[in-house]
């Protein structure tokens, strides 16, 4: 029985690679304007993504922490 899910969650979250924004590359072809219009009308980017938001928040705080540790090491070594 899992009494504390935090451990499993931490293990899972630590394995996820850093989330970055998708690159928007211009498409080729005759139907590319139509596709762009359909994508603009689709609000899939505005939907709530709780898991993605949670991973982003976790990675942001982790990166800040690692940055602080690095700065401390540099200051300590200098």
């Amino acid at each position, binding site marked *: 029985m899992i009494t504390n899910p*935090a451990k499993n*969650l931490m293990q899972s*979250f630590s394995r996820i690679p850093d989330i970055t924004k998708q690159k928007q590359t211009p498409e080729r072809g005759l139907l590319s304007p139509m596709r762009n219009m359909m994508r603009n009308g689709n609000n899939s980017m505005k939907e709530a993504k*709780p898991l993605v938001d949670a991973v982003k*928040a*976790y990675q942001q*705080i982790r990166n*800040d922490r690692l940055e*602080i*540790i690095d700065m401390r090491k540099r200051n300590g070594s200098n």
Partner: protein
Amino acid sequence: MEVTEPTFNRPIPGEGLTHELGARPWQNPPQFSTVDETVSYYVARIGQDEFAKGLINVIEMGVPLTVLANTIQLAGVMEGKHSVDVGILIMPALIEAMSLIADSAGVEYDTGMKEESMLPNQLAQRVAADMSTQDEAPAMEEPVQEEMPVMQEPQPEGGLMSRRA
């Protein structure tokens, strides 16, 4: 002669132990519905001096961060701050925020990710159990003698419906 009519307008047994639906904070819509709002609320709260001091004291006692994060989010659910699923999702961010606080304070902490990490009271219980087992002398086990099965002779059945030989 007066006849008293029975009155049924009385509380049913156990009614005093119940509440109306919605009377508890977790039965109402949560204050923060998204992960971002909840994380920013907790990060701001952890960053407060009073909270940070108490948190560092607890971390110094050896309580794992996973246990602390679980307790904090559960308290948030009971206060009606956020829902259970949002609380589960923000736990890793909470652990990282607490480790950030501990790192900045220069305190060693137990993340709770190791197999052998346990609560102080669990550690005390294990130590006490080990000491009690050491005090007791090892008991000698007596060899168990297996009983030989005894062959029983078939006895003639003497009922009315018994078959004749």
